[in-house]
């Protein structure tokens, strides 16, 4: 219980820090809205391609907007953590008698909170522009939960980058690492329509399976044969990355 109590203190502090930077929040929401604007209307004609699973391209795009925002949140996480490391604030926390994993937990929990807020904002925008969710309200909850878990996993990648490199230069540019994870996917077009090396690369990207699952819930509903691979990949990704981040964190603080 003590670890939870301590984590909650760190979490509240991180939450206040986040809320103290309103432009970070506005920018996160705006960037998602802009995605619809830039890709939604201009690419609408893609839905006429044979084999395209829906006639509503905005609905097709919603999964991409959510997953992309969540994947890139790993880079934000790296910067948030690096700022605390560079300012010496992490040292200050480590000087206190709290369990070191409370600090880790409080940090990952704020990543999850940010993801929930961002995903909720995107789902709201999607609803406003007329996207209908085939999976219904349980689908909305499932999408939020799944992408929040993905955000935690990506936050772990960010944490490893910040802790390992301790470099502003590397951390600021860490979005480059997240870019292939976000773009080597069937974000704009179904996988069946992707060919050549791109098609192969998409097949190797774990985020693709999660994206497909999320998109299926949104545009087709509870089609388990398409959702389950994404679920397993999501759980495996979380297990691997949380373990890696924990290992790295333990190594760094011992």
């Amino acid at each position: 219980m003590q670890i939870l109590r301590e984590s909650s203190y760190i979490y509240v502090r991180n939450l206040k820090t986040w809320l103290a930077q309103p432009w970070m929040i506005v920018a996160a929401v705006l960037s998602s809205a802009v995605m619809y604007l830039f890709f939604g209307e201009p690419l609408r004609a893609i839905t006429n391609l044979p084999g395209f699973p829906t006639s509503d391209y905005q609905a097709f795009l919603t999964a991409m907007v959510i997953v992309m925002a969540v994947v890139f949140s790993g880079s934000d996480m790296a910067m948030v953590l690096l700022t605390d490391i560079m300012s010496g604030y992490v040292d200050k926390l480590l000087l206190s008698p709290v369990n070191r994993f409370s600090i880790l937990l409080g940090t990952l929990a704020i990543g999850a909170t940010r993801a929930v807020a961002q995903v909720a904002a995107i789902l709201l925008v999607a609803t406003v522009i007329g996207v209908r969710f085939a999976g219904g309200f349980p689908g909305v909850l499932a999408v939020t939960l799944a992408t929040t878990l993905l955000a935690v996993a990506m936050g772990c990648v960010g944490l490893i980058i910040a802790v390992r490199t301790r470099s502003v230069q590397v951390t600021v540019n860490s979005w480059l690492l997240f870019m292939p994870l976000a773009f080597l996917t069937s974000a704009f077009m179904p996988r069946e329509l992707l060919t050549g090396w791109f098609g192969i690369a998409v097949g190797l990207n774990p985020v693709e399976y999660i994206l497909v699952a999320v998109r299926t819930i949104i545009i087709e509903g509870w089609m388990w044969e398409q959702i389950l691979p994404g679920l397993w990949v999501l759980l495996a990704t979380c297990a691997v990355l949380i373990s890696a981040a924990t290992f790295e964190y333990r190594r760094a603080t011992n």
Partner: protein
Amino acid sequence: MHAPPAVRVRGLEKTYPGGVRAVDGIDFTVQRGEFFGLLGPNGAGKTTTIKILATLLPKTAGRADVAGIDVDADPRAVRAGIGVAMQEVGLDDLSKGRDFLVLQGRLYGLGRAEAGRRADELLELVGLAGVGRRRIGSYSGGMRRRIDLVGALMHQPAVLFLDEPTTGLDPQSRLAIWEYLDKLNERGVTILLTTQHMDEADRLCQRLAIIDHGRLVAEGTPAELKAGVGGDLVRAAFGPRPAEADGADPADDDTAAAALRALPMVRQTDAAPDGITATVADGGAAAPEILRALHAAGVPVAALTVTSPSLDDVFLHHTGRQIRDTDADADTDARVWGQWMGVNRQ
């Protein structure tokens, strides 16, 4: 049964990856309630020693106990009983001063109400009560130091480690911090402070250890250390000879030194710019004799001053250098995280 000392260090060593030996087998003890200083230039190993005692850095060899607890055996118990303010002030700029203190208190197990009450009390103590609800990012350098310092006091630690608490501050802020530290020590808090400022060590510390290149070169009260230099210093400034317009004859140095060494009370002579310094047991008694001897040797004396040795002289005596000449290996930017990352710093 006697309570264990606040800090006990035996044969402490720290070698960083890459082979830099920052601490090279030091021993010292700080008694409960004492105000103890580690004095030395940058790179001497002071910060490394504090970090080991604060459980932020693993030692290579030796033993370090804080309040009788081995820092390796039970680091969390050590952390719970100490307060630490490092040279690199680790603050959360987006947090408000009072919120920062309350969180510090909570992390040390204080209840919400108690943490709030204590934060208000400490903000008052260091003159920050009026800005407690402002973000720390808007604070001046002196205010940041003070909030950092009281952050380390939220849980009323018995032992306080301060790494260069006034470096980079203006004289007024420095004086204010000194006064707070005096008050704390009067209340029974044991303080172990590192500094490279002689005046700070002299003003605050009841006992001092001088550290250089990772080794302790001297230890004692400021008065003992100064006495160890050999007594008072009598400095004679040479006057011009009647035929000369500018300064002393180079021959005066040798003549004066020979004349003074002939006096039984003179322990040592050192050349000074346009003059000579003699080390004697009692400056007041020796001054007339020195003046008479120089006059007899034909060395014109423009002024004679008697001073007690300063800690500058103590450092010079033990290391052969002045502290301000030895700032070569800066450890000022070392961060604990840097150590964990395998970055070779000291």
